[in-house]
Every structure is written in C-alpha cells, then in structure tokens.
C-alpha cells in the first residue's frame, strides 16, 4: 500500500479561497469524439469580428509602422524597399499562427486522450475561469502562465475549448515550429513562433512587435505568452523578459485600446513530465533538439502517472489601473504613434515592475504539493545519509507536518487533501516520485542512477554525478515552494549573519541579499521595504521573532523556524561563495561563460568528494549562470562587447568585496545595481 500513488481527486481539497474542479472527471464520463465535436461558441471582446490569418497578416504588412521601418532599413542596408518588404513577408510567414477551429477540435480530441492517461486530475478554479470569461468580453486579454513544462503550451487552450472561451494565440519558441507535422498542428492551434536570439535584427523586431500589437488591438482572441521567456529548468520563477511585455502595453499607452487585461495563471504540477531531462540539462547534458521523432520516442514517458495538475486562473490585472500615476500617456501626443520609438525610461520601468508583479501573482497562485515540502526537508539532510543510511520515514513525516503548518502560516496555497490520513498523503507523494526517492525498511533513500556497465573502473567523480541528478530533482521540487519562505528566510539569514537585531542594520543586509540573489528569487523592484516588512510580519505571526519599531529579535522557541529558514538559503550562499572564490583565485581576469561553467563544475565536484561542499546545487548550470548575471548587475563583471562567446572581464576586488559582504565580514554598501535593460 505504501508504494503506490493514490488518487485523491474524489476527496475535497483544502482551499479557503476557491473551489477547484477536476475537469478531467467530466471528460472521463463522456466520449472523446463527441467532446471534440461539441458546439464551441466563444464570445470575443466587444463582439470583435473574427480575423482570418490572411487578414491579420495583411494588416500587419500594410501598417504604417512597418512602412517606416522598411524604408529605414532599405536606406541603411542599401536594398530596395521591395526586397525588405519581401523579407518582412517571409519573417511573418515563418512567425504567424493559423488558428483553425478544426485543429482545435483535433487537439481537443488528442488532449482528452493524453491528459486522461497522464494525469489523475486537472484542477481548475472555476471562479477564475468565470472572471476570465467576463474579462474576455470587456478588453483584450493577455494570458500569462508560468512556464514549467511543455504541457503548459496547450493545456490552457484545452481548458478554453472546454469552457467556451476564445482560444488564445500563443507565443512559442521557433524550435517547436521546426518539428514536422507537430509544428503545423501547433500553428493551427494558434501558436506563433518567435526566434530565440533576435538580437539586433531590426526588421524581425519590427514584424514581431507589429504582429503582437495588432493581435492585441484587434482583440479577436486572447494572447498568451510566457513572461519568463523560457521554460524554467529549476521550477523556480525566472527573471521576466520585457520585450513582449512592451508590445502588449504599447497599444494601451497610445490609446489604441481602452484597457489591457493581464491574467496571471499559475500552473502547478505534482510531477513534471520532463523532470529528469531537466535535471540532466542542469548538469550539462545538452537539451535534445525538439523533433517529432524525439517526441515519439518520449512516448515512453506517456505511460507513467504524473499525478494531478492545478491550473489557477488569477485575478485579472487592469493595465489602466496599474499605470495610474506611473505613466503619463500624454507623452505620446506629439509624435505619430506609428513612428518606431524605443520605450521611454518611464515605460521601461513600468513594464519591468508590472512583469515582476505578474510573476509574484503567479507564485502566489501556485499550489504547493506535500512533495515539495518533503523535498525542502530532505535537502537539509546530509546527502550521504540519504544515499547510504537512509532517513527515517517517521521523522520525515513529523517534520513535513511541522512544515505544513509553517507554510500555512505564511499563507501558502497547499494541495493537501482533506479527509485522508496524513501518512497516506505522504506515502502517495513519495510513490509518485519513486524515480527520486525510495522507501526501504522505514527509511527514505535517494535513488542513484544506474550506470551502464563500464569496462574501466568507475571514477569517483562519476559517483557524484550518479547522485546529482536525483539531488537536483529534489532541488527543483523544493523550488516550487521556495517563494513561500523566501522573504522570512532572507530575514532569518540576515539576522544570523549580521548577528544584529537592529532594523537599520537588518534592512540593508536584507536588501543586499535581494540584490545578490536577484536572479534566484524574484522581487518586485523598488519594494524592498515592503518585502522586509512582510518578512517581519510572517516571522512574527509564526512566533519566531519579536518585532518592534527598532528591533527584530529571535523569540524563545523560534530557533526551529529560524534555523530551518537559514538552512533553506544555505545552499545558495555556499554555492555563491564557492563561485566568488573561484573568480577571485582564477589566474586570468578574462574568461568565457563556457570556461567558467566547466571549471566551476569540476571544482564543485572535487569539493563534494572531499566533503568540503555539502550542496549539489553548486553543480546546477542555472545557478552558475545566475551568479554571472548577478555579478554583472552588481558591476563586478563586465561583458566584453566585442566578444561573440560571452567573454567577461572580472573585477576581482569587487567580487571579493561582495563575498565579504555576504559572509558578514564587512557591512553591505548601498549597492547601486544598474537598472535592467533586459528585453
């Protein structure tokens, strides 16, 4: 009984706010075919007339904006206008969606089959869906889901099809378009494709932005895009990309639509389809190219169970309301609105703020599974214990229940079924993830990868790699709940490192940590003080600290919470320090990203073997890249503009200073982080 995953979908969910409904339940009762042929009668915004692909593309190509850009480029590149126009037409051809109801039906049919097999249930909050239904009729709607799995792509469309909401047009990465047949199916299901490295291709930017703006202005369908830009390898929120954000905001800034509604959507997986693929990618095994054959081969994964999925439609955000007092729309009065212009500093700051706000909404709307809490706890157990002796199951149960209480205090949405014994819930979670942990003799063990039989004796480094994949999967699942704890954890860490109780020392250190880890944990820019206050409030609420006007002091009996929170951040601090040290001690001040990743991985592997490093997270290429980004932002690294291969120059003194601040040796300066210009 203990080693099977149980389906608790019949049991009501604990959720004070909204009721989730399992949409697969109804599907299981009806036939797939009749579902696919159901009458689908969505009502678009302001009864906007449907817009055919040809019509949409024509409007884009004939736009005044593109005419300006085309002429400009023709002049710069010494081409004829016709040549540039032809190029624009090609770009649009490669990009454009071709939404057809027939294919939506086909998709509905297929997904019905696939989803029913993969997932025990897909929970959707009906209230959110109703709000969305309402919103689609009032203003252009932008659907903004988080991105954790390829499944994200079409699950929203599937739900829309089920509930008579216009099928969205979805921004997707170009590699998907390259897949034979599948690319075309996606295209006809409403996906349009964006190249990955657009860089400074002016014409491409122009076509893309006009295409997106036209979709928003026409409002015939919601637009869906992933503000994080990429699928998160670590299941943690990624720094939002602002390019698309600007494109959807501009029609509002310029008065071309009355308002734009942003709808954050949180998709939470109990088990992610690509879990092991992702872990290996993080360890440096390259991502397989998206191909139809690859997909068919991957059909093996389709025979497994992936538990439940939650799709939480958040509250609609009105851009009009949010930009009050932040954007002066009169600034667009004096130049033709079609003239290509860079977003103003004001608009950039707003887009950045808004994108972060959406991510925060996504985080708050996500559903925390028991498994994520368990992972957080298992990662605080020394790895050798997990691989060799095993960790007592009853202890894990006890700790998880304790953590559940803490998460609830911190306001997390928990996906913990009511009316089922807690032990069953946990057993079932562990069983679902039997590829990562196994239970033997009352203890939990980390699963080590089976290596194919080798002729030569295994090197010790390979032992590390065997454990690493499972460890990084634990890390990823822990990350699903990281946002719940991160603010209190930063405060707990600040208290621990500064050994201070004074707010005016804690707050700067808190902000410093936010800056250093700005690529690990996302915070709304400019709201550091609010984050600090929130951390204080939450820690006070769970009785871990006393808070007054000047001081934050640890409460008696607060140590359990505080030390858990400190340990939660420890892997990050240790990994960052390791990499800071590497940069300071490296022979050259010049290095490429690739060199850095390889060297740091080797160093971390060595230290893990000698037990001088305890966290496998240092092996994660994601974290390694974040260190580089953070240092660039803190201006301790500069990218050499001439280099093609991401070459950096290291300011060793600055890195060392950052390391010293992080270890508490010197107090944090008010770091002047340069504003983001990430588009």
């Amino acid at each position: 009984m203990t080693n099977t995953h149980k389906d608790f979908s019949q049991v009501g969910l604990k959720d004070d706010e909204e009721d989730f409904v399992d949409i697969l339940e109804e599907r299981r009762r009806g036939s797939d075919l009749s579902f696919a042929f159901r009458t689908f009668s969505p009502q678009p915004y302001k009864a906007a007339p449907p817009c055919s692909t040809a019509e949409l593309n024509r409007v884009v190509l004939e736009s005044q904006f593109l005419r300006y850009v085309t002429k400009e480029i023709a002049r710069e590149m010494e081409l004829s206008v016709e040549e540039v126009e032809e190029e624009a037409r090609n770009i649009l051809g490669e990009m454009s969606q071709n939404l057809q109801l027939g294919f939506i039906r086909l998709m509905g049919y297929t997904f019905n089959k696939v989803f029913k097999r993969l997932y025990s249930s897909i929970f959707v909050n009906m209230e959110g869906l109703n709000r969305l239904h309402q919103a689609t009729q009032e203003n252009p709607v932008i659907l903004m889901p988080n991105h954790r799995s390829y499944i994200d792509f079409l699950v929203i469309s599937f739900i829309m099809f089920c509930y008579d909401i216009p099928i969205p047009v979805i921004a997707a990465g170009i590699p998907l378009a390259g897949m034979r047949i599948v690319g075309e199916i996606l295209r006809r299901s409403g996906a349009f494709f964006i190249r990955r490295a657009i860089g400074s291709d002016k014409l491409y930017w122009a076509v893309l932005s006009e295409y997106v703006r036209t979709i928003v202005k026409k409002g015939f369908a919601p637009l869906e895009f992933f503000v994080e830009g990429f699928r998160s390898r670590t299941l943690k929120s990624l720094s939002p990309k602002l390019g698309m954000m600007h494109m959807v905001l501009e029609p509002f800034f310029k008065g071309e639509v009355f308002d734009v509604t942003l709808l954050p959507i949180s998709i939470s997986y109990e088990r992610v389809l690509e879990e092991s693929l992702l872990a290996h990618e993080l360890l440096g095994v390259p991502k397989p190219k998206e191909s139809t054959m690859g997909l068919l081969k991957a059909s093996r994964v389709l025979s497994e169970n992936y538990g439940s999925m939650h799709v939480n439609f958040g509250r609609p955000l009105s851009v009009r309301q949010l930009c009050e007092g932040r954007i002066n729309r009169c600034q667009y009065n004096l130049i033709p609105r079609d003239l290509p212009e860079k977003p103003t500093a004001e608009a950039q700051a707003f887009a950045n703020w808004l994108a972060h706000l959406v991510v925060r909404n996504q985080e708050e709307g996500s559903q925390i599974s028991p498994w994520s809490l368990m992972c957080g706890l298992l990662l605080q157990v020394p790895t050798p214990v997990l691989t060799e002796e095993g960790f007592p199951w009853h202890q894990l149960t006890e700790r998880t229940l304790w953590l559940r209480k803490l998460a609830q205090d911190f306001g997390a949405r928990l996906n913990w079924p009511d009316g089922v014994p807690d032990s069953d819930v946990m057993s079932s979670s562990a069983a679902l993830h039997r590829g990562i942990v196994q239970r033997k003799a009352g203890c939990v063990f980390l699963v080590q990868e089976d290596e194919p039989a080798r002729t030569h004796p295994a090197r010790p480094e390979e032992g590390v790699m065997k454990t690493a994949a499972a460890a990084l999967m634990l890390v990823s699942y822990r990350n699903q709940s990281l946002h719940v704890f991160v603010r209190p954890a930063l405060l707990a860490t600040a208290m621990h490192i500064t050994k201070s109780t004074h707010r005016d020392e804690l707050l700067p250190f808190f902000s410093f940590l936010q800056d250093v880890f700005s690529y690990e944990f996302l915070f709304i820019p400019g709201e550091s003080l609010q984050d600090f206050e929130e951390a204080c409030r939450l820690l006070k609420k769970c009785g871990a600290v006393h808070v007054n006007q000047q001081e934050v002091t640890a409460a008696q009996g607060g140590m359990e919470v505080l030390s858990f929170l400190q340990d939660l951040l420890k892997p990050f601090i240790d990994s960052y320090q390791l990499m800071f040290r590497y940069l300071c001690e490296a022979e050259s001040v010049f290095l490429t990203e690739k060199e850095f990743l390889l060297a740091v991985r080797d160093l971390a592997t060595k230290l893990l073997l000698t037990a001088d490093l305890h966290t496998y997270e240092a092996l994660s290429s994601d974290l390694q890249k974040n260190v580089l980004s953070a240092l660039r932002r803190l201006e301790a690294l500069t990218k050499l503009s001439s280099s093609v291969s991401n070459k950096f120059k290291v300011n060793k003194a600055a890195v060392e200073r950052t390391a010293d601040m992080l270890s508490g040796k010197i107090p944090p300066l008010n770091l002047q982080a340069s504003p983001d210009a990430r588009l």
Partner: protein
Amino acid sequence: MASNSCGGGSDRQMAAQHRLSVIAGHLQRPSGSNTAILAAECKAQGSKPFVSSERRTVPRRRQEIMKWNGWGYSDSKFVYNKKGQAEFTGKRYKLSGMIIPGLKDWMENTFGATLQHKTTATPALNSTSVPPPALNEAFMEELKSTGVPFSADAEDRVFRAHGHCLHEIFALREGKIGRVPDMVVWPNCHNDVVKIVELACKHNVCLIPYGGGTSVSSALECPPEESRSIVSLDTSQMNRILWIDEKNLTAHVEAGIIGQDLENLLNESGYCTGHEPDSMEFSSLGGWVATRASGMKKNIYGNIEDLVIHIKMVTPQGVIEKSCQGPRMSTGPDIHHFIMGSEGTLGVITEVTMKIRPVPEYQKYGSVVFPNFEQGVACLREVARQRCAPASIRLMDNEQFKFGHALKPQVSSIFTSFLDGLKKFYITKFKGFDPNRLCVATLLFEGDREKVLQHEKQVYDIAAKFGGLAAGEDNGQRGYMLTFVIAYLRDLGMDYFVIGESFETSVPWDRVLDICRNVKARIVRECKDKGVQFPPLSTCRVTQTYDAGACVYFYFAFNYRGLGDPVHVYEQVEHAAREEILANGGSLSHHHGVGKLRKEWMRETVSSVGIGMLQSVKDYVDPNNIFGSRNLL
C-alpha cells in the same frame, strides 16, 4: 438656428408674431422695479446705424422672455402631457406644439427615468435668498452722471451670475444662489463702455463682461473670493449693425448683437456671416470673439478667427485696435489673438468688423447611414483629405442615432410611417446593417444650385466607398434640429432625475476613433465606480472636419436617483473624461473655452512659458485685475 433660417411661409409669420411680442415687451417696460434704471440713448454715435434697430430679441430684462433656471425661452420646453406623451410647447420652433411619441420610452430605456420619479425645481426666484449687493457708492454716483443704465435688482443680478454648466443650472433649480454680481450695467455703445471701464479703474470695481450668457466653462461665475464690488457689463443693448461695406463684403457690428439677430438683419440686405454656432439663438458676437467660437458651417465661412477683420476692445490701458482693414498682415504676432480667447480677462470687445457673404442661393440637407462608426469616421477622413467637405458634415454614433430617432415628431400620415418602416427594413434587413451598430452622418450643402448638386454627388460617391447609404434630407435636417433642442431636453431630464452635459475636443485624425471609444468607456466605468445606479448615456459625434483632425463632441448624462451628491459625482466623471481626452491626444477645448472649469489643465496645455506669456499680457493690460473673472489663468 438652422431650422429658423430655413424659411417657410409659417416661419415668416411666426417671426412677425415674435417681433410683435418683443415690441409689446418693450412697451410694457419699465415695470415696477424700484431700482434706478436710467434709460439714455447713446448720443456718441455720429452716424445713424445702418440697419434699423427696432427688433431685437434680447431685452434689458432678460427675465421677460427667458427662463431663470433653465435653457432658452420661457414659453418653450419639453413636458409630458396628460396622456404621458412628450410634447414641446410654444410656437417658436419647428418642433413646437408637436407630440414626440418616442421620447418617453427612450428616456425610460436609456436612463431608467420614469414618470413616477419626478423632481421639482424651485418655481420662482426668491429675492430674499440673493445676497444683498455690495455697491461701490462712489462708482455708482459717477456712473449715474454718465447716463448709462444700471440696476441692482436681484433678478437682474442672478440672471448674469451664471452660464449653462450643469452645476450652475442645478443650483438654480434648487434655489441656491452663490456669489452674484452686485450690479448690472447696460452700455449702449463703445463710448459708454469706455466710460464704464474708466470708472471701474478709478474706483477699483471688478468688471465681468456678459454677452449672451451661454457659457459652459464657468466663465461667468463670480469668483467667491472677490471682495470688491462686481459689476456685470451686459453688452446686449449694443446690438446694431453700424455699416455694411458691399464692395469689400464686410460689416461693422456692435459686439453685443446675438447670432440670430445678426443673421436676420444681414439677411434683409441679402447677406449673412455664415457663422452658426449651436448657441447662435442666444450667444453674442463679442462672446464668440472672446471664446474663439466655431460655427457649424465653418467649412465654407470659417471659424471666428477667419471671419474677423477688425476688433475694437476697451481695456484698462485704453482701446486696442488695428489701424487698417488689410485682409492679412505681417506685423508681428497678431494682436487679435490676444483678444480672441481672452474670455473677458483683458477688456470688453465693443465693435467687430467681420466678413459677410451673399445669402446662398440654395441649401440642401442630406444624410448617410453607415454600417458602423469606424466606417463613418473613415468616410469623413476621406472627405477631409479630398477637401470637399460640405458646409457642414457631422457623424453621430449609434446611441445618438437612436436618440435622434426618439425625437421624431408624431407622423401625421400612415403613408409616411409606412415609408419609414420600409426604409428601416431596407437598411437593416436588405443591406444587413446592425441597428445597434449603424451610425448616421448629417450633411448640409450650400451655394449655387448646380454646384450643390454636383458637390452632393461627390460626397455621396465617397460615402458609398465606405458602405454609406444615402438616407434622405429629413434625417439630415432632424439631426441639425437636435442640436438646439437638446439644450431644452436637459431641463426635461432634470425634472426626472437625469443630469448631463456636453463637452468637446479636437483631435488628430488617426486618434478620432480611439478617443471616442476610450472617453465613452471611461465615462461608463467612472459612473460605475462612483456608484451611479443606472447605466449612463455616453455618446459622441464628430462635428467638424479639418485637414489634420476633427472636432469631437461628447454627450454624457445619467439618472442620479440614489446618489447623495449627484453634481459632485457628475463633476468627478467629467473631470475624469477630460483627463482621458488629454491622455488620448485631444485638446483641452475646441470652441467652448477654458473659463474656470478647465483652468487646471492650462499649464500642461500651453506650457509654463506659454502661461507666462499670457500672464505678462494680463499684467500689462490689466494690472489691477479690473476684469477679475479669473478665467483662463
């Protein structure tokens, strides 16, 4: 007004009757008023006025013919008769005496305003509620010796204390009287004004010029903080055409003349100015100049700035005027542009020379139905691009089209109603126009018969390219009638808990659709947010076309039942709507002016340097703020 001028036999008869009644009114005066009214003809004018000045619409005592707490003539208003049908009373207008069967349902369906819920306005002005006048005795004594008539009668003063903003009329209906002028003077000619201004400067009295009283910018409101005696300078008796120059086609006119009198008098000599603002029944020439007015037929005749050749204005520093009547000059910044739009802050405009034209041989109304507003705007844009706009071209949105429909008078013959039904069938069923999306453009052509017909064809051909269908002369004419009737309709609305007003802007062509949609939507949203219980009427029309843009007019009204402070809610929504206009690239005003209502946006509108320029002119011309209406700046 348009319907007045498009003469028929009965209209002439009506005009004659009207004339008689006005003369009778003159004869009855002076009534039992106990304040001193000294009548003295202006002797200063050497030459006799060119045109007989016997028949004038506006008497010194406006209360004899006009409402004290509503729009227009006392005898003309909308009422619900015993059968519960709407009816327009009086004999002055085409619609007068007619039943309007559709209006009641429209009021109910649009506002939820039913006959059961009626408000009652204060029936008559209670003089005791009017604050006693703060008179400057020395000023009064010297004024008496000049022989210029004046009065401190409560009614006279209250009549000149307001324009026609919603809050002004609403307060009057409630019997609430705020700060009002302490005295009214009626100069008879330019020299009278010179004397009054001299005395005002000498005795530090605040002057507020008053023309037709149709301001909708709070320009006539007395600043509550004004502690000096406030004198309302009523120009209505300066209403003569002093000469007509047929060689150059100009006329020299006293600035107090009101629009309809000016047109009627010129018509007698075979001329017209062609300047027809919607308020022309009551608004004055001086007021047009002081607010930069715009006329319905500006496409042929131009706006006031195009019509004016010469202006005489009396300021505290003396009289300002140009030395010749050259049609255009390169003599530094045009000083006329300090005067036009000065809104009574620099002086009193006393005489104006303006262009006149021979009365056109032929006039023809027309209308075009478009499947939707977008198509209609595209058509107007094309007409403007080809520079072939008729004398007037206006595009009403769907709500206003329905409104116009509701104002159709009862049709007498079954045949007409059958025809109407047929037309409707043709448009909605045969042509597939959605009755909830279609919109209508009204047209007015003027000129030689042949050219009009040619012009008409050109415009209809363009319209056809945008899916427009010609919809007949009647619809066109009714559209223009709506313009003056709507002001009366507001009074009916107020009887049944509906308040509303219009406001306008000008905007580049590419933003017309966006501004219409966004402002209308903003109004609806603000009403909802402010707790208005019923959906508001939020509608617009494009009323003027220019090479580079258009003038857009919004109507906004709502049923205020259930609101504690409806006027405050109204003002908040109007404020938000104006913000929305500015954010969408619209101007602060196309022709209503700034007054005190829109002052707060002047700096962002003309920049700080611009404000400084205007202020320095004010400081030089009127250092002691004698013209203390505090408009504009």
